[in-house]
């Protein structure tokens, strides 16, 4: 089949943007039309991505649906393709975007047209990141996503939105320029930026360390790892609900994906060398940010810190260098994408009614919003990794993986499980249980139809993935196995060389 399906999936949202652009008239009507157009576009993308997933051959580890076109002569080709590692992120992006669009309908009150344009442009950039098989193209999408996100936080955000938007933009940009230098250097050394060719190639060991650090600078900011995580709580808190969802569910995963694809694939020796660094930063992230999350007064900030802790698990799993660890990381990323999106939406539900995110303003919500309390409960449990929910599978796989390589790291990482239970449950207790102290809470109405529609698919997925994780593991296992075996082979050759 020669249909350029990946290109279509990537750039279809831009066609939606095109239609929205030529909509003029009353603000109300334009907002409505933009909503319908963008929802339709994103659903179409989602259907296409499902089609992509079903026609994906799970038994081979190489890249599929590869498209290659001339772009910049003598330098970079336009090359896209997916393998088992990246395809699920494409599906996740396509799945989360329509949910964000529906959520926007309630939470964004002004300039809806612009918001949907930004959201759709964002979708193109995010899918592009996961599809691109060329370092230059990857960087292009990775960075271009900053522009719409900057505007989303800055225009529709909360009180300190300007500060948050600037911090987000400048942190990420500063990290990324080091990756750009590394990419240029790789091109100078090897004469290509084609990822497939580079993966097959051995980059000289003496360069690997610095190049690895260049990529690490970018991914560490984006993940985010301690100590460069401080942009995330600000961005999360100030962004509108759907902005937070996109940030938590997909933007952070770009970095995890980057670690697996580029850090491990291109610089195995350096990855091995620097793994203690990653482990220590991740452990600090898990323990420290969990403790910080415990004392948060703002619901969104608490979830933001919990994201940092959960991403700590992801990085530990990736640098365990075995198939359980990496599979666990990917699973954890996808699960966290769904769960954190759901948690932010849950916060959004009460925020739209109360216009406050302070935990102390709530209490006893379960009395007036029983349905909401049930849904929120399930997502909280999934977040702390209760067996039977998707959060559990990722965590246990990561812990198994890291246990094989390093007991000590496994021990500290495991404390994170307990800590996450502490802050998650305490958040839930303070919001939902107890006496109703605030009169406004008494007047709350339970979740409405459109909120229900958004949360139900997430709820089903969380449980489905928790009970039957093979949906995901089947797709990723072949690619991960081959990644690990190539990695081990490269490390073995290097060690042999060192011994000689």
């Amino acid at each position, binding site marked *: 089949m020669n249909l350029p399906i990946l290109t279509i999936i990537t750039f279809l949202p831009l066609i939606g943007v095109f239609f929205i652009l030529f909509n003029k008239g009353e603000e109300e009507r334009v907002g409505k039309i933009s909503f319908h157009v963008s929802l339709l576009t994103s659903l179409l993308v989602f259907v296409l991505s499902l089609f992509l997933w079903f026609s994906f051959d799970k038994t081979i580890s190489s890249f599929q649906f590869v498209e290659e076109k001339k*772009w*910049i*002569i003598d330098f970079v080709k336009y090359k896209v393709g997916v393998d088992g590692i990246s395809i699920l992120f494409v599906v996740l992006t396509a799945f989360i975007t329509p949910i964000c669009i529906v959520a926007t309908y309630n939470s964004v009150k002004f*300039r809806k047209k*612009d918001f949907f344009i930004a959201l759709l442009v964002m979708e193109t950039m995010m899918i592009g990141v996961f599809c691109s098989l060329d370092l230059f193209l990857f*960087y*292009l999408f990775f*960075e*271009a996503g*900053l*522009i719409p996100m*900057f*505007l989303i936080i*800055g*225009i529709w955000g909360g009180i300190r*939105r*300007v500060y948050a*938007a*600037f911090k987000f*933009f*400048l942190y990420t*940009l*500063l990290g990324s*320029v*080091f990756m*750009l*230098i590394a990419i*240029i*250097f790789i*091109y*100078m050394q090897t004469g290509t930026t084609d990822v497939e060719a580079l993966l097959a190639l051995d980059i000289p060991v003496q360069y690997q360390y610095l190049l690895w650090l260049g990529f690490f600078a970018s991914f560490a900011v984006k993940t985010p790892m301690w100590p460069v995580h401080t942009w995330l709580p600000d961005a999360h808190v100030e962004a509108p609900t759907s902005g937070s969802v996109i940030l938590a569910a997909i933007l952070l995963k770009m970095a995890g994906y980057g670690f697996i694809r580029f850090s491990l694939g291109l610089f195995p020796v350096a990855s091995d060398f620097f793994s203690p660094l990653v482990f220590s930063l991740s452990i600090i992230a898990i323990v420290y940010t969990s403790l910080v999350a415990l004392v948060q007064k703002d619901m969104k900030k608490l979830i933001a810190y919990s994201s940092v802790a959960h991403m700590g698990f992801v990085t530990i799993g990736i640098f365990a260098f075995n198939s359980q660890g990496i599979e666990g990381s990917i699973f954890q990323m996808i699960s966290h994408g769904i769960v954190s999106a759901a948690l932010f939406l849950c916060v959004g539900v009460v925020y739209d009614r109360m216009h406050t995110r302070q935990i102390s303003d709530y209490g006893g919500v379960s009395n007036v919003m029983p349905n909401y309390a049930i849904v929120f409960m399930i997502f909280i449990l999934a977040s702390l990794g209760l067996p039977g929910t998707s959060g559990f599978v990722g965590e246990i796989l990561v812990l198994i993986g890291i246990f094989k390589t390093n007991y000590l790291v496994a021990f500290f990482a495991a404390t994170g499980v307990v800590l996450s239970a502490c802050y998650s449950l305490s958040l839930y207790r303070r919001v939902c249980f107890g006496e109703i102290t605030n009169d406004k809470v008494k007047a709350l109405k339970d979740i409405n139809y459109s909120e229900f529609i958004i949360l139900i698919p997430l709820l089903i997925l969380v449980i489905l993935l928790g009970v039957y994780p093979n949906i995901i593991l089947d797709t990723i296992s072949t690619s991960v196995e081959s990644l690990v075996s190539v990695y081990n082979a490269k490390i073995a050759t290097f060690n042999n060389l060192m011994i000689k």
Partner: protein
Amino acid sequence: MENINFIYPEIFIAISILGLLMVGVFKTNSFNLVTKLTSFMFLITIPIVFLNSTVSMKLFSNNYIVDELSSFLKILILGSSAFALFFTDQYIKKNKLDKFEYPVLITTAILGMFVMVSSNNLIGLYLGIELQSLSLYVLASLNRDSTKSTEAGVKYFVLGALSSGLLLYGCSLVYGFTGSTNYYVIAENFSADNIALLFGLVFILIGLAFKISAVPFHMWTPDVYEGAPTSVTAFFALAPKVAGFGAIIRILYIAFGNVFDEWQSILIFISVASMILGAVAAIGQTNIKRLMAYSSISHMGYGLAGLATGINEGVTASVIYIFLYVVMNIGSFACILIMKRKDIYLENIRDLSGLSKNHPLVAFCLTVMLFSLAGIPPLAGFFAKFYIFMAVVKADLIILAVIGLVTSVISAFYYLRIIKIMYFDPEQEKFDPISSKGVKISLALSTLLILFYFLNPSILNFFVNLASKSVQ
């Protein structure tokens, strides 16, 4: 006599200047007519230059060169000047600058720039620079009733005269020790052991760095940019930089090509200093013209970084950079000319507040320009920076690349600040409706080019590659 055939553009412009002066002197209120004639003359000159664009000719005993590089830069100079005249027409009339000398002086400056980019001789270079600079001094103080404008003109003149003096002193040293003012002969006789020659080289570089406002010879730039009428500032930001670059490329790569090691470190210093100062000093600015001045300083730094590599890719990257810089500045200045309430032109960044609600399209165009100036992909400014850093890394100057990229993050801050003011801040009174066609068309064209450059970057690369080969 066959030499004459290749300098038709210069001859044509020179004769036009005389003709335009005649028209201006003998006809009252002739600004409109002269401007139209000038634009028409630009349009005719571009194809004339283009006809010669595929030849590489050494004219007048190797003292004047017409090749792909000079033709490319000349077309760029003509094009950008045409735009600068085109989109400022209304501003000129509103501010009562509509004197016929205006287009004539611009044309004179262009003739000087043509000589600068083609000259293969120190005397020719000096003549070109002076012809250009003297016209620019007058242009800067064109608004005679404004103290700021006259101050700008005087400041520019005094400092410009000083730098010309330094340049001339450098020329005399080089001439004294090599026995010629021709670049080829200088290249043959230049020996790096001779301290006096190196002195000469440094003085020449200082003179040229002044003309493109590179640090530490940038002091005049913010004041002149702010003081001069906006229409003149727009012209300052475009064509003179192109010409300065052309002159620098030719003198460094041909006359001093053999002593690359001697000037490389100077150029790296100038480049790093420009990037850092341009990025840091712009943060505190509130006047958008001053801000553009610092922005142009830092962009000159990036352009020079490409030249500091001493390799073909570096020259190509610099020429691409200067081309896209010109396009981005056309767009930005077109936006600045839109900032007008009740027939008064505004210059404070604060006045842009809430632009995205009042004029969403203008805000979008300016946002594209600013993100591109900041070098965010997928806009053209990113590619421009990317090519520069690619050449820099290839020349093993990784530290320079790191500094450049970090300063680009710092400068992103002040570009973002403008975007923040446009998008995040509360709206103010609307600007006057845009009635100038020139502004609309220039803004639309430059935005489209910057926005869709990524679709096919190879076209520009192809032309620039041709151009930059001719200096190797």
